[in-house]
């Protein structure tokens, strides 16, 4: 038995490729079959179409479902979602930069660890609960309204809500509310990569820049920003992609439909899986660009 095991060990030691294969096969099979297989079936299904008469899925390859996609209403939804995702990405980037900069450059190690934890905790904690909390905060009779009333700024809030396009009957059912909730939910995803990127900027470069006579603003624009750019890009990919695919925030804290809602409803309520499949190819396409 022992020698057999030894032979087994030698066998694999002499053939590292084989050992590698044995290690990598299970995870690759899982992801390859379960995940890529599913993505592939998503593509296949999106080529089928729903028979409007019988309400059953016709399993014949055609581009009919994609044709349905290009209606005015659906295009509006795509544009609205993409605009929201872009706005949220820009806002989180602007909001994330100062704390990330502070974390990377000024915070002493102990405080830095505490801050990192303070940002990680909301990132990992229940996303659903975090969206829900904004419903509570923004509701008509909720926290924000109360403070606004106390500050005698109700006229300002009403004016904001009266704006066409982004307004609504109350904050919790307006685009402003959706935007706030999205920014809140995805902010940690932006802070962490930006802070990581800023940490890698060597302080000597900043000193050199100011020695060479650059004003702080110039140093920031021509040295810090380009070096932190990869972090910004990584954070933006996260926030953009997460906003594109979300259907929970738009369902609770919004008054209009996003890509996610349409996908969810067409598979759940209408049972039109081909359409849901075709529509969820859209965010993949946008992400690919």
């Amino acid at each position, binding site marked *: 038995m022992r020698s057999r095991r030894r032979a087994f060990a030698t066998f694999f030691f002499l053939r590292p490729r084989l050992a590698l294969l044995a290690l990598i096969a299970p995870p690759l099979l899982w992801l390859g079959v379960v995940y890529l297989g599913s993505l592939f079936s998503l593509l296949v299904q999106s080529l089928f179409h729903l028979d409007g008469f019988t309400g059953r899925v016709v399993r014949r390859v055609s581009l009919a479902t994609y044709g349905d996609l290009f209606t005015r209403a659906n295009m509006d939804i795509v544009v609205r979602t993409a605009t929201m995702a872009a706005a949220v990405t820009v806002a989180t980037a602007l909001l994330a930069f100062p704390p990330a900069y502070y974390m990377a450059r000024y915070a002493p190690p102990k405080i830095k660890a505490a801050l990192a934890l303070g940002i990680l905790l909301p990132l990992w904690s229940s996303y659903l609960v975090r969206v829900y909390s904004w419903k509570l905060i923004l509701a008509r009779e909720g926290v924000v309204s109360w403070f606004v009333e106390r500050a005698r700024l109700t006229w300002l809030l009403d004016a904001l809500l009266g704006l066409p396009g982004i307004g609504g009957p109350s904050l919790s059912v307006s685009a402003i509310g959706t935007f706030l909730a999205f920014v809140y939910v995805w902010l940690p995803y932006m802070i962490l990569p930006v802070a990581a990127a800023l940490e890698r900027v060597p302080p000597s470069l900043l000193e050199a820049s100011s020695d060479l006579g650059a004003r702080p603003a110039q140093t920031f624009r021509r040295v810090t920003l380009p070096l932190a750019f990869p972090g910004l890009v990584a954070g933006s990919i996260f926030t953009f992609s997460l906003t594109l695919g979300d259907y929970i925030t738009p369902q609770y804290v919004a008054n209009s439909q996003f890509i996610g809602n349409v996908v969810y409803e067409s598979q759940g309520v209408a049972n039109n899986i081909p359409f849901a499949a075709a529509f*969820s190819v859209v965010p993949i396409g946008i992400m690919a660009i």
Partner: protein
Amino acid sequence: MIGVLLFLHLPFAVIMLYALTTEDASFRFPPPGLTLDWFQVAWNRPDIWAALGLSLRVAGAATAVALALGTLAALAVHRSRFFGREAVSFLLLLPIALPGIVTGIALRSAMGLIGIPFSFWTIVAGHATFCVVVVYNNVLARLRRTAASQVEASMDLGATPMQTFRHVVLPHIATALVAGGMLAFALSFDEVIVTTFTAGQQETLPVWIFSQLTKPRQRPVTNVVAVFVVLSTSIPILLAHLLTREGTRKEP
């Protein structure tokens, strides 16, 4: 900085406040009165217990699968350079980089196509798919700090690969495994998007909250459960954080 931290944490305080309110129909602020009754009401609701049980079992199973697959992948990627190595990392990352709804609808459409009925295992399959990467990242980071010479020494001294793994590699990556496992557990425990597509009629705790939000009955009970979910996911996250930090401190 302080502003951002407050922005990130105050909403939790609001949820806690609303779990104590005596007002059960609207979100009136400030609450007309405070009470602890809702905790008792929540305690006596069998549907909450059922959802919690399902969530725990799913998270446990998904974590087990993710631990096995993530560790294997990390060992393979760490050990050697091979064609498509980058592709493996990318493939593992894809389920959390693409919107959750894509993963959800993809799994759902595959099940529909092959005709797999919804079950406990369909939820686990969905969760495990996006949990693998968490374990993988943690273990790989730890392996990168491990000296290969220890493994070689163990082999030279006559240990079988299984022995080497058990006595040399495993103790070394143990805390990374625990940390990765806890993060995977937390991730699975409060996942809702993929779950709504792969669960059918069953309700995990987040799906329960989700359905309560659309057809509200006793709102404060939902808030109590929300508080519970937040607290119970933050504990494993804190522990995981402490464990991985300890790992870095040991480094010379």
